[in-house]
């Protein structure tokens, strides 16, 4: 039983990463219905931001914290640019958006290769994030690595900030209005184009934050985005379109499932099981955990 409990903790660490990489998507895919395959490359941009900042700023902690806002802006700007250049022309064609942004992701990867070189680059983690927190000591201790705890905290903070933005700010109200009824929103004087771009900015900015967090646990290289993009989409698909809560539940559920399966079987069996579980789950609830009902038919 302790094994499962400790694996649940590992699952929470995995889930925190999943949540953070999927959070931006819950805006762009969840709210706007845009399948942005370049989301992974925005995450990559966030990670390279840390790398760039560690050049002039040698203190790993300072550069990491400073990277959070900078990466948010860098990735957000890239997202807004992408929206302005391509995506806004494709709102009526979601599947074509998927393909176009995949092309963009290929380009960004090659760009990273040309700018930063093909090999992975390395960033240092601050000392205060090494080691782990012991929750329960003794024979079978329950522990959580500080780096994961940081990611968990970042994810929770991002979810909270996002919820507040959506619920309490004029921008959030406009965003929700546009999601629920574009024509009506437009008719009531909301500049839907601007709202779309801002939403995309936010979603992509969150990808930048995720990139910063990923430097604590994984490799930083031109192909890092491709490895995580499908996982991120699966979280949103399971979580359900348009609901943050769904994404949160899905991320941790998938994380725990993966961790427990991995512990008791092998990694590949665990991956396949998780994927099959997702397909089966969609049989049961085709629209994910939480569904936002829109009143239009098609």
């Amino acid at each position, binding site marked *: 039983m302790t094994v499962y409990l400790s694996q649940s903790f590992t699952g929470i660490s995995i889930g925190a990463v999943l949540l953070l990489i999927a959070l931006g998507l819950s805006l762009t895919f969840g709210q706007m219905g845009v399948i942005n395959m370049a989301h992974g490359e925005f995450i990559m941009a966030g990670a390279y931001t840390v790398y760039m900042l560690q050049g002039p700023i040698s203190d790993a902690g300072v550069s990491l914290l400073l990277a959070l806002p900078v990466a948010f802006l860098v990735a957000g700007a890239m997202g807004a640019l992408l929206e302005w250049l391509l995506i806004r022309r494709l709102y009526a064609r979601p599947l074509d958006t998927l393909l176009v942004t995949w092309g963009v992701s290929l380009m960004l990867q090659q760009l990273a290769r040309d700018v930063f070189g*093909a090999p*992975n680059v390395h*960033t240092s*983690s601050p000392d205060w994030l090494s080691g782990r927190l012991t929750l329960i000591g003794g024979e079978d201790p329950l522990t959580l690595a500080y780096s*994961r705890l940081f990611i968990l905290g970042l994810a929770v903070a991002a979810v909270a900030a996002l919820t507040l933005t959506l619920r309490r700010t004029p921008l959030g109200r406009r965003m929700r209005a546009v999601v629920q009824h574009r024509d009506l929103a437009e008719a009531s004087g909301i500049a839907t184009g601007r709202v779309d771009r801002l939403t995309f900015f936010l979603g992509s900015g969150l990808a930048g934050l995720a990139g910063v967090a990923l430097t604590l646990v994984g490799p930083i290289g031109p192909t890092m985005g491709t490895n995580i993009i499908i996982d991120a989409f699966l979280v949103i698909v399971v979580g359900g379109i348009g609901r943050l809560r769904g994404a949160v539940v899905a991320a941790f559920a998938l994380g725990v499932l993966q961790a427990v399966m991995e512990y008791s079987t092998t990694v590949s069996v665990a991956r396949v099981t998780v994927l099959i579980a997702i397909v089966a789950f969609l049989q049961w609830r085709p629209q994910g955990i939480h569904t936002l009902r829109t009143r239009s038919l098609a």
Partner: protein
Amino acid sequence: MPRIRGQRHRLFAAAVTALTVMSLAACGARTGEEPASGSQAAEVDTSGDTIKVGLLNSLSGTMAISEVTVRDALLLAIEEINADGGVLGRQIEPISEDGASDWPTFAEKSEKLIQQDGVAAVFGCWTSASRKAVLPVFEQNGSLLFYPVQYEGLEQSPNIFYTGATTNQQIIPALDYLREEEDVESLYLVGSDYVFPRTANRIITAYAEEHGIEIVGEDYAPLGSTEFATIATKVEDSGADAVFNTLNGDSNVSFFREYAATGLTAETMPVLSVSIAEEEVAGIGAEYLAGQLTAWNYYQTTEGAANESFVQAFQDRYGEDRPTSDPMEAAYTSVYLWAAMVEEAGSFEVEDVRAAADGITFDAPEGTVTVDGDTQHLFKTSRIGRIGADGAITEVWSSGEPIRPDPYLETYPWAEGLS
């Protein structure tokens, strides 16, 4: 309407007829027969002033990171030989092809090099999968491949020279070292999910059984996998004396970070890696690797005049910051060995070159290597290195003398039944 339909039927009939005619015309050889039209062995093109060789490496895709360095080392060797007068009086003309990290592309490009370009030999391939993909091409065309990377053994094609280590020159010495020098009695095996780690771990398991080492866990992560929280926990829980790591590429970054996060260190549970060379250390971060072990035949720091001049030449050519690594050294060596074989044979023909191969030696950066004509592998010295906080790998143990290659582990009784 009916006219269109009629037309279509006619077209259909034409296609079927064409197909039938073609298959009747194509009474090719049955399985096991010699092809009647017999262009079996591809001709080496010796018509020009130069002699062409193929360089087959992934210049794009996931493997490009590693394989480009090998290509660079190959080119360096060719330039040096050319500057020294070439082979049999001819300059070597390298033709570089991109395998694009895709095995069918490797097969296709090797066919192109052999058939279209008439190269005397091909140098390259990194992954076992790409080597397995090109092997039939080289065997069918009677051409030669020089393969420069340590691999899982259990192979001996007459058309391939293996200049990297086979298992008894890397894995078994590494196990000997762990057992004798580090007093390891239990091992945890972590690897990427592909042929080298799986085969290596079968050998390790057999070795462990023979020598009373307990294998307390064995895990494989899909290639490119970057989530190692669970595996790190399993490793920690196992309480093994050491970890034998056959992870590849990106996965190492995540693995070592998680490993460090669990609080494990090189002192408490050392990790011996067989796929981390100088090139990879920088990407993983030296602080995560400090004190950990590697097993290779060559390090940038290996002593000797041959290596000093190799490192010097390489950095002069490609930049001061470029490290040299074992596969690069093996690739560099392979060109010199081929040139020596050709000089010995006095011919570029594959059969002559093979016949001349046995006993060819070269004063390589790793020390003297000798070609074993029977297995077409090299006698190589095994070296265990420790990664320093600065990222440099220094030798802590060596086999002292070159080990005879034994790709099928026939001289190890405990390995019986492995192949």
